[in-house]
């Protein structure tokens, strides 16, 4: 799961685990990603289904928080209108660091079906806030959102204090 160097038989007490601070912090962060209770459109219905008992987001430590001050993660689940984009930016700024963004569904990835004639739609939420993981779909099934979350966890697992967030490509290079 994570790089804790378990030194077998070095200690008589078997409940000691040795690791480094970076991995411990990363493990703690990725295991309790509290998401902001925030939904926009039909994707939000799928997000709620992912949170509910059948798909059970909580088994990955994800649970909704009603305030941006207590949230680590915001899932942009739906169509971002120009009017809402300003509010999303403000909510994101109110979240404490470290903070992560999952863009869920075609609308929030790139404008989706509104890409040409949607006079009111922002063509991708990454025009106002930085996105960590894009989940494709219209709307994505809960399985897809779960995979997006696992990708985000993988990303957090590889963070370093010196370099901060690294993309998966950068890490493997």
């Amino acid at each position, binding site marked *: 799961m994570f790089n804790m160097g378990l030194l077998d038989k070095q200690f008589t007490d078997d409940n000691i685990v040795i690791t480094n601070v970076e991995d411990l912090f990363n493990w703690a962060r990725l295991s309790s990603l509290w998401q902001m209770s925030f939904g926009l459109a039909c994707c939000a219905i799928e997000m709620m289904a992912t949170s509910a008992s059948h798909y059970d987001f909580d088994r990955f430590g994800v649970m909704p928080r009603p305030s941006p001050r207590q949230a680590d993660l915001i899932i942009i689940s739906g169509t971002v209108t*120009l009017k809402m*984009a300003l509010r999303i930016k403000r909510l994101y700024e109110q979240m404490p660091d470290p903070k992560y963004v999952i863009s869920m569904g075609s609308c929030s990835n790139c404008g989706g079906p509104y890409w040409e004639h949607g006079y*009111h739609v922002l063509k991708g939420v990454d025009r106002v806030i930085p996105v960590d993981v894009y989940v494709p779909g219209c709307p994505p099934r809960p399985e897809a959102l779960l995979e997006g979350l696992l990708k985000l966890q993988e990303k957090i697992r590889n963070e370093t204090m010196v370099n901060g967030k690294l993309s998966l490509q950068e890490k493997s290079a």
Partner: protein
Amino acid sequence: MKSAEEIFEILKAKFGQSVIEMKKDLPVEPFIIINPSDIDKVCFFLRDNEELLFDSLMNLSGVDDANGQSVNDEEGGLKIVGGTLSVYYHIESTKLQHKLCLKTSVPRENPVVNSVYFVWRHADWHEREAYDLLGIKFQNHPDLRRILMPYDWEAGHPLRKDYKNPEFYQGMKVPY
């Protein structure tokens, strides 16, 4: 219960010139065309007359008729000059079980229609929507603000046929 023809005769006898004509040769339900500056008086009568009792405004919608002249503007885009914008009213009497469609047309350059806010309160947000998306001004509406687009939207009314989306809104790029 009255047919659209009977209602048209009643309105014609009562309001004369304000009731312009009745269209029934189109493949849609018949509708009655009313003068835009008298629509509120006609609607009050339709609501309160004991034979009519139209107590419900089912829908109010604005339309760009796109019947003006298309001309090139300075920036090379198309602009429509002249022609009309229209407002359609679908009303129903829940007591007498009859329905009616009204239409009123206003010139594109000066689209002013009398508000029916005080006849049916349902008209409040419908009229704000028609104002927001088509720029039809409803006279006597107590709170004619934009309802869907941002309050500080300056690029015009999006459902007009010659609408052009702006490059930027509040620093955000709008086109794809």
